[in-house]
């Protein structure tokens, strides 16, 4: 594999929840927490490894579960289940974490790192979460978005663009 180069175009999201920082942290760093929300609508996630230490693995399957999603994946000739491997590259519990994966499968595009960085902070009785996501410079996304299929996109998991 060629050396990964970074193609960053981070998109930042900020949310505030009635919760503690530790509770938010657990949603990202425990099997139960991660499986409870990560899968897109119509998909479920099965975590095989989640090790929130620097260099620790995050390995999971993204599995189409909804009727529409299964039909969509079949129509697009995509597998119903897709394995994803990522690594925790920054862990500062419970304040910040970074999950990194290498995208090296897009024809004509060199390998690049994709990062998701999350920061947590207390805000009175609430907790704030800032998520900075590298946008995928990926053909599939672009084709669908430019074809006016944004609504369809919300049904698709990252797995579609992480397909190897």
């Amino acid at each position, binding site marked *: 594999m060629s050396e990964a180069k970074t*193609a*960053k*175009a981070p*998109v930042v*999201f900020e*949310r505030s*929840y*009635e*919760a503690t920082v530790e*509770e*938010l942290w657990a*949603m990202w760093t425990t099997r139960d*927490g991660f499986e*409870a*929300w*990560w899968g*897109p*609508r119509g998909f479920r996630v099965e975590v095989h490894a989640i090790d929130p230490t620097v260099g620790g693995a995050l390995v999971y399957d993204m599995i189409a579960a909804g009727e529409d999603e299964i039909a969509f994946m079949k129509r697009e000739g995509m597998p119903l289940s897709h394995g994803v491997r990522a690594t925790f590259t920054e862990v500062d519990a419970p304040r910040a974490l970074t999950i990194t994966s290498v995208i090296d499968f897009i*024809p*004509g*595009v060199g390998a690049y790192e994709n990062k998701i960085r999350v920061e947590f902070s207390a805000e009175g009785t609430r907790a704030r979460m800032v*998520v900075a*996501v590298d*946008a*995928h*410079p990926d*053909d599939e*996304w*672009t*084709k*669908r*978005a*430019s074809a*006016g*299929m*944004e*609504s369809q*996109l*919300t049904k*698709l998991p*990252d797995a579609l663009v992480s397909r190897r």
Partner: protein
Amino acid sequence: MCICAFVKGEAFLALADPTRRQIIEALRGGERPVNDVVAELDIHQSGVSRHLRILREAGFVSVRVDGQRRLYSLRAEPFREIDAWLAGFRGLWEARLDRFGDALAARRAKAAKPVTKTKEKKR
């Protein structure tokens, strides 16, 4: 591969450079000759020309020859494509973070439920 995919791939690289973003800012008001851009950015003309060439190749800028002058202007298409693409990307994450909030609330509600005590048998 469709043209939009090509534009997108080039777009990220083209926009990664701060000088090129400055040039885009400088052209937001409309068509300008290269000398105007050089004067505004205070960068050597060869540098500005090089960046303009990269922006042109990535589809962000078009050039029109007017006598001795070369006039540069922004093209709307790649910006619209990036907008549409980001809207889809952003939509996925907004939905994902909605689910994060729902799952968090469900866990908190479950944790807050009073534990049902087993009644002690009367002796």
